[in-house]
């Protein structure tokens, strides 16, 4: 089966610009998660979709971040306007959503805001 794919792999933007990250989960996985790792710290939860619905967005840092999952397939995460502290690696993961299910991760998008 095809794994989770993320695009782009790297993005360098200036402060104040907009960036959109894309994630294609494993086919059939209703659950999609976004995570972020900043400055080599822990991997922090951003939000969780079940199909097209936001199940939990408690980790979204502020209203500059907008995530969508139209049609319950791929997801996008938009940062607008980007700030320096948004730099980090953004991971997308998908799963079947049960508690004993491991997450399947994409390779991540490394975002650098200058």
């Amino acid at each position, binding site marked *: 089966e095809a794994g989770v794919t993320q695009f782009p792999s790297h993005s360098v933007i200036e402060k104040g610009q907009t960036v959109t990250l894309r994630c294609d989960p494993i086919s059939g996985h209703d659950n999609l*998660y976004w995570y972020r790792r900043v400055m080599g710290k822990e991997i922090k*939860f951003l939000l969780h979709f079940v199909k097209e619905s936001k199940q939990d967005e408690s980790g979204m840092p502020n209203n500059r971040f907008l995530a969508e999952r139209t049609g319950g397939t791929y997801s996008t995460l938009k940062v607008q306007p980007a700030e320096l502290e948004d730099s980090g690696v953004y991971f997308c993961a998908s799963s079947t959503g049960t508690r004993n299910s491991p997450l399947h991760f994409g390779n991540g998008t490394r975002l650098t805001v200058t």
Partner: protein
Amino acid sequence: AQSVAQPEDQVNVAEGNPLTVKCTYSVSGNPYLFWYVQYPNRGLQFLLKYITGDNLVKGSYGFEAEFNKSQTSFHLKKPSALVSDSALYFCATNTNAGKSTFGDGTTLTVKP
């Protein structure tokens, strides 16, 4: 709130020696615990999990982990390390919704 902790940022071992990467957890109820490995420029890959049953669980690439309820630990182990095991390792626990909480990660370096 549930959490996991990885007390060591770095672990260095010689090839052929046993390795241990430590993880402790704080979970209300029964813990669902996972180990993941991340190689450079790649996403996290699932290694193994503990849900219930035997305290020693076996996973990919010869890794195993020992669940210890009294010490609230879930240490990752391998009897004989390989240079190719050098990577970043994350311990995690899952909520009922399948959402994972991760530790800070431990960089394992295996020297020839």
